[in-house]
């Protein structure tokens, strides 16, 4: 019997159009999952904290100042701020933009609820991103520094919201952000296999709807409190808080008034 090499299998022709799955290649799985996770923790958790803290504005400028002071007195607060807020948020926002520009929305052809929600998640994400850039810049870094002057927080926001355009921006962004977060939790549960069944997703949809609405209403209430409930808030309701820990200067001559006890 003659030995012949077995016929070579036909080479897979180069495909035009959408490329097949690149099994075993790339790191997009890791980045995409990180994007999904950071949306829940730490960013989602921070959003909830932020909205709850802002709800203190309903108790007036002093209560709000106490809340701002408390947050800024957390241990390692600047590390927390960068490590749990700014850096994850920047990653989530930039990778989110990358995801958004690579999608080809087709609600014009297939106007189905899930498809609209797909689009809404991208639109609200972009709104939130643009809003947060100006919000962080104008409220955290520009103007009077709130970590050292928590008492000025209420007034600073009030001045900001005295501009009707800014007020409109805050209201729109509040709605967009709560929407993005609420649907984000729903998407997280669906995609990570926490709610695989139709019924489970539906039920969890109600839960997310309630959570999102509650957060949104709390945020809007805070905006209302700043603009209408306590008009003309004083510029600063607390004395300046020096950076670091300082013992209060005592009037009587106790050993504590010894200057050597004062730490810088």
């Amino acid at each position: 019997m003659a030995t012949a090499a077995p016929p070579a299998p036909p080479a897979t022709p180069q495909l035009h159009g959408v490329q097949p799955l690149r099994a075993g290649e790339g790191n997009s799985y890791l980045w995409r999952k990180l994007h999904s996770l950071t949306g829940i923790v730490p960013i989602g958790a921070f959003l909830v904290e932020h909205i709850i803290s802002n709800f203190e504005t309903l108790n007036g400028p002093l209560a709000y100042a106490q809340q701002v002071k408390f947050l800024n007195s957390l241990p390692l607060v600047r590390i927390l701020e960068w490590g749990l807020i700014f850096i994850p948020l920047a990653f989530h926002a930039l990778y989110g933009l990358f995801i958004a520009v690579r999608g080809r929305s087709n609600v014009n052809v297939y106007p189905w609820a899930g498809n609209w929600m797909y689009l809404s998640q991208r639109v609200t994400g972009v709104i939130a991103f643009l809003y947060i850039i100006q919000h962080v810049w104008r409220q955290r870094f520009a103007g009077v520094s709130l970590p050292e002057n928590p008492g000025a927080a209420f007034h600073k926001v009030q001045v900001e919201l005295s501009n009707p355009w800014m007020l409109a921006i805050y209201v729109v962004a509040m709605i967009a952000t709560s929407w993005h977060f609420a649907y984000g939790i729903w998407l997280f549960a669906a995609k990570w296999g926490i709610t695989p069944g139709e019924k489970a997703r539906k039920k969890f949809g109600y839960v997310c709807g309630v959570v999102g609405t509650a957060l949104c209403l709390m945020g809007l209430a805070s905006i209302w409190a700043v603009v209408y409930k306590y008009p003309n808030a004083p510029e600063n309701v607390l004395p300046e808080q020096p950076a670091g820990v300082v013992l209060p200067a005592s009037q009587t001559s106790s050993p504590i008034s010894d200057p050597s006890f004062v730490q810088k």
Partner: protein
Amino acid sequence: MAQSTIKVEIKRQSSPGAAAVTEKFEIPYRPGMNITSLLGEIALNPVDVAGKATTPVTYDSNCLEEICGSCAMLINGKARMACSALVDKLEQPITLAPLSKFPVVRDLAVDRSVLFENLKKVKAWVPIDGTYDLGPGPKQAPQIQEQRYPLSNCISCTICMEVCPQFNDATGFVGAATIAQTKLFNMDPSGSVLKEERLRALAGDGGIQECGFAQNCVQACPKQLPLTEAISDMGRDVFVQQVKDLFAR
């Protein structure tokens, strides 16, 4: 219906690189037609509405009963199976166009081999080839059968991919059908031997992570596969596999 003709507008293209043109046809009305019989009617007498002779329209079809999966096209703009799209239920003029996300071969026929390649990447088969009789396979519990049967209905029509906003050149997303077939074969008592390889494949670039959960797939699938459920289940399994690999390999 009192109408005497059916108006059709077909986006045509003579070869893969050629420019697309729209040809209009008007054919005598018969009750109970579907799009494949309409195209057959045109092939009998390929003359456009202006009386100009043209060529029969090229399209894929085979079973004519929505089971082979070959006749997917855009009918009035939406991805559907031509053989199950009834002319009487369509608004006129009926527009026909090739699927938009696959390279056109000619007229309404497109090259959908990307799905075949994807199925190969996830090893969507039961590995039982061998040189000797392996004997009967393991028993399948009815509960497993009930979950698997709907997934086995996939006809590889690629409609779920066509309608998916994430299935495009930029992402190279694998699409719902392949993910559903991964679940089908992972749940097979014999096929599950390749489970880990399939799950790893789905974490590659263009893998399950690209899903944006727009849920168009499950709306559009002509065979009503539970696609979102499969994506969710595989999403969890792929994640668990990645974590296992991280700590155990």
